[in-house]
């Protein structure tokens, strides 16, 4: 019937149109997550694209009570910088200005530790790890107002960081595996690598400061490396009084100048910092630094542990000063390494710690909580691995070996150490007494640790002799592997690279596996994790590795030491994050705030 035909045609038309509309609407929807299939024109097809929400304030200062824009924040540095040049800087104090003046392509979110774009808005990483494509943030500009371009990225990587005339071999930044950097249309840059390594991809995103080519290209390699304070970037601050003419470096900071002054970058493309200026003052002597901190023009300083304890216990000072102990992802961990291999390396005589049972016995004897409470004045937290709970790969379910002294004795006995002659000291089957030397850096806290270990070992019939050494002497003996037991430590790392310290191939030569621990299980996990570029999968592997290390105890981990800071209560928005405190989000208050 004609009516039915019209109806069916109408229905078919409606369905078709509705279907077309539905497909169009579906295509226009943003993806639920930050990863999407590569439908964008700049990306290589078939490889996931990671897009990133722009990184703003971790904690918006304007929402804090007492917020006031303006003023200068002054922090006392604990060391004297020799240079501020990111290409030649070696000390932490030399990188403070760089962190505020220059920016990398991406950074870890201070609250979640997720990777977030700064100068990059999106990126692709080859699953085989041999290339990476980065799309730049179109809003990003340098302090002179000029946009950050792909050519600036290429210049920074190829002409600066990967240039052997600029970066010396074995520098902190190693781009020897960077094969090429190509500028593509639409402010996209593609990097290719000769090896699959996380440091080649994630490392490039997070560790390379991007230099403006239009300013730095006029400098020769020698001028670039000799420059000490010519710092121009895209960050929220800029060097005070510094021009942008590389041929006229008269305004640059020079060594011997104890103050570094940064002013707010009024052309900053991101959320503007509240402070007008930030000043760093280098005061090398700790006593002089504390005295200087008392002056009204100083807002913060990094104290040593004794100064921190003194301020924390002073009720008068606590009315105006907030002592902060911030455990961040990069906080230092500390432990006692047991020599698992031959002393001196290779075929040298083995120590009793070659036995896992002996190491576990030692771990039982050392109560991390007690050590922290009695020796380190309660500053720090106990740990079970080479990191801290702030890190996503750290397995918080693991516990340190504990138990009564008898448990330690049983483990020693199972390893062949018994008191065979009733003199109170355990001996092996050959009659040799269990005696070892514990070396540490000559500091009061480590000396006390030596006394603690000696006393605990005496309880199980082991003779321990503590020896305090200078820092360089301790390092020399660690490198030579000529120790029985030694204090060791390192900074935590979000992109943990365990190969240098925990793989068996690092037990000799240039490796930092000074305790010569060789574990097939650990090697397999390290090899697998090192080849993995997916951060989540990698962290899962590191979690397992943490478990192996905690079980086999090549190092008995004692504590993670927080970064200490004294901040006056006239500074607002001092928020503890997983990456530390963020100077660029501080503000100066009219009235002091209560301690947080």
């Amino acid at each position, binding site marked *: 019937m004609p009516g039915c035909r019209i109806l069916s045609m109408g229905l078919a038309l409606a369905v078709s149109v509705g279907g077309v509309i539905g497909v169009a609407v579906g295509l226009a929807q943003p993806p639920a997550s930050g990863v999407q299939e590569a439908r964008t024109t700049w990306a290589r097809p078939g490889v996931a694209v990671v897009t990133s929400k722009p990184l703003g304030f971790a904690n918006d200062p304007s929402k804090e009570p007492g917020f006031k824009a303006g003023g200068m924040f002054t922090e006392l540095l604990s060391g004297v910088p020799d240079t501020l040049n990111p290409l*030649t800087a070696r000390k932490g104090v030399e990188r403070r200005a760089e962190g505020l003046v220059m920016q990398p392509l991406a950074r870890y979110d201070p609250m979640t530790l997720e990777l977030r774009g700064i100068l990059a808005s999106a990126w692709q990483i080859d699953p085989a790890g041999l290339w990476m494509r980065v799309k730049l943030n179109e809003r990003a500009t340098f302090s002179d107002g000029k946009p950050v371009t792909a050519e600036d990225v290429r210049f920074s990587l190829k002409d600066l960081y990967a240039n052997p005339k600029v970066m010396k071999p074995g520098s902190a930044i*190693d*781009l020897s595996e960077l094969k090429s950097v190509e500028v593509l249309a639409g402010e996209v840059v593609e990097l290719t690598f000769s090896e699959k390594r996380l*440091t080649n991809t994630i490392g490039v995103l997070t560790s390379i400061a991007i230099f403006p080519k239009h300013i730095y290209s006029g400098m020769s390699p020698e001028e670039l490396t000799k420059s000490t304070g010519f710092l121009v970037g895209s960050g929220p601050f800029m060097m005070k009084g510094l021009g942008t003419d590389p041929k006229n470096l008269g305004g640059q900071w020079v060594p*011997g100048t104890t103050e570094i002054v940064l002013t707010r970058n009024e052309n900053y493309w991101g959320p503007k910092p509240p402070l007008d200026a930030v000043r760093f003052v280098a005061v090398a*002597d700790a006593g002089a630094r504390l005295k200087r901190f008392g*002056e009204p023009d100083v807002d913060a300083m990094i104290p040593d542990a004794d100064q921190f304890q003194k301020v924390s216990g002073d009720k008068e000072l606590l009315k105006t000063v907030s002592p902060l102990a911030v455990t961040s992802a990069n906080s230092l961990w500390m432990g006692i390494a047991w020599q698992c291999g031959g002393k001196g390396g290779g075929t040298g005589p083995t120590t009793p710690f070659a036995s896992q049972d002996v190491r576990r016995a030692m771990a039982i004897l050392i109560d991390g909580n007690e050590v922290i409470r009695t020796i380190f004045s309660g500053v720090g937290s106990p740990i079970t691995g080479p990191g801290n709970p702030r890190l996503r790969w750290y397995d918080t379910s693991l516990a340190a070996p504990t138990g009564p002294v008898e448990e330690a004795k049983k483990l020693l006995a199972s390893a062949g150490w018994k008191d065979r002659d009733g003199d109170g000291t355990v001996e092996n089957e050959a009659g040799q007494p269990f005696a070892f030397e514990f070396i540490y850096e000559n500091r009061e806290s480590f000396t006390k640790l030596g006394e603690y270990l000696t006393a605990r070992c005496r309880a199980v019939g082991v003779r321990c002799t503590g020896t305090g050494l200078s820092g360089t002497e301790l390092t*020399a*003996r660690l490198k030579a592997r000529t120790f029985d037991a030694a204090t060791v430590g390192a900074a935590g790392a979000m992109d943990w690279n365990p190969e*240098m310290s925990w793989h068996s191939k690092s037990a000799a030569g240039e490796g930092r596996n000074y305790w010569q621990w060789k574990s097939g299980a650990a090697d397999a996990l390290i090899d697998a994790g090192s080849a993995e570029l997916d951060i989540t999968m990698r962290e899962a592997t590191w979690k397992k590795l943490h478990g192996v290390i905690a079980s086999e105890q090549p190092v008995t981990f004692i504590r993670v030491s927080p970064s200490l800071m004294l901040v006056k209560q006239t500074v607002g928005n001092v928020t503890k994050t997983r990456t530390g405190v963020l100077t660029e989000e501080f503000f100066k208050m009219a009235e002091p705030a209560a301690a947080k």
Partner: protein
Amino acid sequence: MRAYILRRLILAVPTVIGATLLVFVLMAATPGGIGGSLRGDGDSGLVSSTASAAARREYLNERYGLESPVLVQYGRWLAGVLPVKFGGPLGVVGVGGPDLGRSMQNDRPVVTILAERVPVSLGLNVAALLVVCLIAIPSGALAGLRAGGWWDRLSSAAWLLLWSVPIVWAGAMVLHLLAGQSAVFAGWWGESGGRAVFPIGGIRSSDAGEWASFWPGSDAGGRWRRGLALDTLWHVCLPVVCLAYADIAILARMTRSATVDGAGADHVRTAVAKGLSPGAVARRHVLRPSLVAIITLLASSMGGLIAGSVIVESVFDLPGMGRLVMEAIQAGDRELLLGTVLLLTVLNVGAMLIADVLYARLDPRVELR
């Protein structure tokens, strides 16, 4: 005299070489050795493999020759320092200026670093020397001329007390009492809010760079400015006091002894017998001869004018030679330490020679052979 001076100059060469070689060998023998801080560098950032660490070791060895024998390293440094350059088919290339090399820590020329630090230590020590002379010589002379009197007893006790005070404690006390707005005596003259009597540290104020004037005066906006000269003087007052007080005690004591010896001499008795006034006897026949020993002592200390005091420079945060030497030793910075030792040794050897010549000039009884 000329032969003596020439002989001393020739002998100065092995003296300088001996001093620098001894320091170098001792540094090489210490744990960590030469370049210890370079090789023990924390591998932060992207150093990801033993290959990178090996590359760094190779680079450091090639650049600084760290794995060469100790004497070879020293020989290379000495060859750079000598004005006669060797090489080529004839052996001697020519004459050139001494090349003290570059610091291992920051790759800056040693000469540049020394040029920054020497004026600080020199300025402090010269100021301290002036203070010492102005106070110690008159007070010591008066004590010697009035030996056994109340001034002699009082000043001797004071000098002993000064000499006994450790410089670390003295520095901490002056800071606590007088330095900064939180000092005990801050705002003592009634200024509310606590005005700093003296600054806590450094060589000059943080805003000194904005001043145009060297001398005190008003700026364009009518505000009074200390000027660089007065500002620097204000900053070095406390460090100079800490540097000077112990030397005041020593020099005053020595002046007293020399004056007492001089006052008991035969020619003084003769002068008194001749009828000269006590003042004339004191000036011409007692003080003048006793100053000979003092002047030669001061001349011999000229070499130490640029040597810094580690303690004072640390307490008052002054970038001087004392701290430089400590930093160089701690880092095993070969070039920097040797350059510093070379400079100090040359100056000390020269100062000793000047002191000897001066002594011979002032005292005709002395003959230099």
